């Protein structure tokens, strides 16, 4: 692994993300990169199921939202410290994903895609009516929560570095899966599930494993994201726009590649930031996202990476 150039490409990206705002204590840059790390984490994990195994998941945001809720809840009344609450939230979400996965991954194509929306909506409806989670008004964390991390200023930096670490871990996970036997099985499922099974791929187990494995890091990212804002409510945590955007990002960057979703996430986030702040286009980013998706699907089915590989075939060995 250490001898492969792509390992160092990921390390470089992580180092740049960590160092760029830290140099000169640039809080404004840090805040703009927070969302980029979250988008990259979500898209990269979703890509393992969507890009490798070929299962379109519209409700991937449920992992993020549920991770957020569990983390915020555990830090509230039971007053668990952040690392413990975070890890517990991630583990619980992964386990839940395994159970859901074994159920809905029997479905294929459009039926699976619909079921993933159902899972997200179902969980949202549950949380809205669940009193310990604050119902539809949500949960707040007191400001004193930041104290164990050295006050709000230091806490926000720690959260940022943790988000960067989770982003890096997501990229390594995606890369390691792609090069593994497990990844080969997922790619075979993505191409032709019946043929894969006849060749010996344990399709059900692999799909559920992929679904559960890629729930963990987004749940951690959700925990940190909502810990950072010290507030969580159902409409933010389970916002389907977010997971639809993750799909646009994957298509934009190139599904099935490791670099594509990360590159797509960064570019999309920049575009989104620009559209949100511009006077002419405020809240217009979803229209752009929709048009972008249409253009990519019609003219660039391989996304940015597909286009780059086509122009420079040798790039394949450097950027997976």
């Amino acid at each position: 692994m250490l001898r492969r150039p792509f390992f160092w490409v990921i390390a470089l990206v992580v180092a740049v993300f960590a160092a760029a705002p830290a140099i000169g204590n640039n809080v404004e840059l840090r805040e703009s990169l927070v969302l980029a790390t979250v988008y990259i984490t979500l898209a990269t994990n979703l890509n393992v199921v969507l890009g490798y195994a070929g299962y379109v998941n519209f409700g991937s945001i449920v992992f993020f939202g549920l991770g957020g809720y569990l983390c915020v809840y555990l830090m509230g009344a039971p007053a668990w410290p952040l690392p413990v609450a975070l890890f517990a939230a991630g583990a619980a979400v992964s386990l839940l994903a395994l159970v859901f996965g074994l159920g809905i991954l029997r479905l294929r194509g459009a039926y699976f895609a619909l079921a993933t929306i159902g899972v997200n909506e179902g969980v949202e409806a549950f949380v809205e009516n669940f009193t310990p989670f604050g119902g539809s008004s949500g949960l707040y964390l007191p400001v004193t929560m930041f104290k164990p991390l050295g006050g709000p200023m230091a806490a926000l930096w720690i959260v940022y570095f943790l988000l960067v670490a989770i982003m890096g871990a997501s990229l390594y996970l995606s890369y390691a899966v792609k090069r593994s036997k497990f990844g080969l099985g997922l790619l075979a499922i993505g191409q032709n599930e019946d043929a894969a099974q006849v060749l010996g791929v344990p399709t059900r187990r692999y799909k559920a494993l992929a679904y559960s494995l890629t729930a963990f890091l987004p749940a951690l990212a959700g925990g940190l994201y909502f810990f950072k804002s010290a507030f969580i409510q159902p409409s933010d945590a389970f916002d389907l726009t977010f997971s639809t955007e993750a799909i646009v990002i994957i298509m934009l960057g190139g599904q099935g590649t490791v670099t594509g979703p990360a590159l797509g996430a960064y570019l999309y986030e920049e575009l989104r930031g620009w559209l949100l702040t511009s006077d002419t286009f405020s809240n217009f980013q979803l229209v752009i996202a929709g048009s972008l998706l249409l253009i990519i699907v019609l003219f660039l089915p391989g996304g940015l990476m597909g286009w780059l590989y086509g122009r420079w075939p040798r790039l394949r060995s450097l950027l997976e």
Partner: protein
Amino acid sequence: MTAILEVQEVGKSFGGVRAVDRLSFVIEEREILGLIGPNGAGKSTLFNLINGVFRPDAGRVRFCGADITGASPHRVARLGLARTHQIVQPLEAMTVLENCAVGACFGRENLPRARAQEAAREAAVFVGLEDRLDTPAAQLTIAGKKRLELARALAAQPLLLLLDEVLAGLNPTEVERMIGVIRRLRERGITILIIEHLMQAIMSLSDRIVVLNYGKRLAEGTPASVANDPQVIEAYLGDPALARELAGKTRA
């Protein structure tokens, strides 16, 4: 000789149609058993019942002594039973080598990813795809895709190979090459169950032949005895002159 596969009273119906009707037969180790019969006789359904794509309504299937009735296809593959498809099923965006690596990784040997590469290459070379190792499967000709089906199955190092019309759709030169490959497989000690409509080919390849008609066994025996069987001539061969010609060309 010991039996590698035992099919006992196996049956499968789709709606009111009895696709396979209480069928029994045995394959001995290292033999080539031919399976022939008119279209719709239940040959491909039988393959699907053996490797677990369909679950039989009745009967048992034993492979190397183990009961595999209703076991899922991936478990059957892991035990060492590989198959090809009548309608080719390449993993299109993946290269020839990657296709074969899937077979090697998840077959009988259960190889780790790194070692699967070598087994994949060997299988691809064995069927004559050595010039196409890095070609995406989608870009192969139909003959290439048929060979890929076989290579993928071989990469799994199977004990028993089910071949479903690997010669169909090939031109005479390609047929000759494929027959050569199948003969070399037998020399490697692989047991083969083969479905084929190309009579000359199956008569010369098979040690024994089972004839299916309407899901039932119509006849069983050496190629010569089957070719001379009046029932087989009536149901399948159609022409006594062709039958005599075939009987003269067989191995027996």
